[in-house]
């Protein structure tokens, strides 16, 4: 297992594998986007309460799921950085942070836009919007901390500690905000086995989630490849790569 991790963690191996993978991921991503958008915007019926405005769900919910997921990736790769010192983990964290922040930003703005027809105002201190906002601050802090170090190795390790503390705090933040908030709707999909929404609405949502996830993986892999080339440019294989 450990050997496998190390092989996978070797920059050259990772670079080549990710190049091949990226093509397939891009294909899956585009397919999911097309199917999800078609299903969500055209096929799915309008909601009997919210009318067509609910269709924002197809971009809002995946964005907020991904915002949390990417933060988990930051924390996990942080733990790997601290324990095993695998370079790729540093790169993954560095490449993930901006896209994670983008997802958080999207979850916030689409949530606010959705709020206007629903609540009559762009912003209410709803529990999920508020903790999303705090999550955005966590991302911004992470990016600010990382970018203020000159030495990338130290930046990665300092960021790892911040991400780990952040990830421990996220449930507490979420719970405290929920406790405090009186204006909040229950989670739309908490359990997949008893969906509170119809499957014709659910399937496009899951497709969009897959699209977001593959999009994230695609962009993150590209970022990781950039970091690899930058840090390994003294090695023979990168030199060869540059000749092409």
């Amino acid at each position, binding site marked *: 297992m450990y050997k496998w991790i190390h092989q996978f963690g070797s920059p050259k191996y990772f670079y080549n594998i990710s190049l091949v993978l990226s093509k397939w991921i891009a294909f899956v991503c585009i397919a999911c986007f097309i199917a999800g958008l078609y299903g969500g915007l055209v096929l799915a019926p309008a909601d009997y309460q919210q009318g067509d405005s609910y269709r924002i769900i197809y971009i809002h919910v995946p964005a907020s799921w991904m915002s949390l997921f990417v933060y988990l990736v930051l924390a996990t790769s942080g733990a790997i950085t*601290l324990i095993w010192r695998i370079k790729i983990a540093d790169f993954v964290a560095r490449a993930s942070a901006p896209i994670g922040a983008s997802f958080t930003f999207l979850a916030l703005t689409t949530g606010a836009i959705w709020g206007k027809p629903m609540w009559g105002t762009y912003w209410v201190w709803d529990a999920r919007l508020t903790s999303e906002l*705090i999550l955005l*601050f*966590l991302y*911004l*802090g992470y990016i*600010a*901390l990382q970018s*203020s*170090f000159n030495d990338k190795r*130290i930046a990665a*390790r*300092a960021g790892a*500690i*911040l991400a*780990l*503390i*952040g990830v*421990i*705090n996220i449930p*507490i*933040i979420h*719970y*405290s*905000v929920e*406790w*405090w908030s009186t204006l909040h709707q229950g989670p739309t999909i908490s359990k997949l086995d008893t969906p509170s929404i119809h499957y014709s609405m659910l399937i496009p949502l899951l497709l969009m989630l897959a699209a977001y996830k593959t999009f994230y993986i695609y962009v993150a892999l590209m970022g990781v490849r950039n970091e690899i080339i930058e840090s390994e440019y003294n090695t023979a294989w990168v030199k060869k790569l540059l000749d092409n």
Partner: protein
Amino acid sequence: MSESINIFFVMLKRDLILAMRDKTDFINSLIFFIIIIVLFPLTFGSDAKLINELIPGVIWISALLATCLSLESIFRSDFEDGTIEQITLSRYPLTLIVSAKIIAHWLTFGIPLIIISILMGLIFSLPVDVILALFITLLLGTPTLSLFGSVMVVLTIGLRGSMLLSLLILPLSMPVLIFSILAVNNASINQSIIAETYFLGGILLLAISLAPIAASAALRIRLS
């Protein structure tokens, strides 16, 4: 083992003496704390009822900002004069030494801050229950802030500007702030504050068990 406990008290005593000798740092942040509290009534006019509703929250926000400000100095001189290397490379557990420093900070800054807050409550003639709730929440909340804050201080020390420190601390201290404000609000309408107190206590325990370890790890990273 007893030697390690000895170094804990040596460090604690040393930091307390240092705080007493270089008073400016923590006195300035306490003055800053008082000024922010005073600014609010000046901005919102002299409507006593409104002020009474606002002031507990104001005290808490001021405490948060003042803690951010005062934490900055907790490791600064040690970094400047090389003591931090001696501490990190010493024969004793780094977490123990770091804990002593954090406790010293709380004793010299947190306790005066709590006393001032109670005095402020009395000056603004808040109900006794509210003052009590303020006392309890500050007693549980300020050490949490010092603990998590110290990790962020180590991460950001020597980097450009102190804004970064606030940017890191403030989002993480949101739960403490929220539970404290809820407790104070409950107290003002004569309701129980037990649930919030438990949460604050739980977060404090989490901070006690995690922050010294994280701060030590951060120290080793920053020195490399």
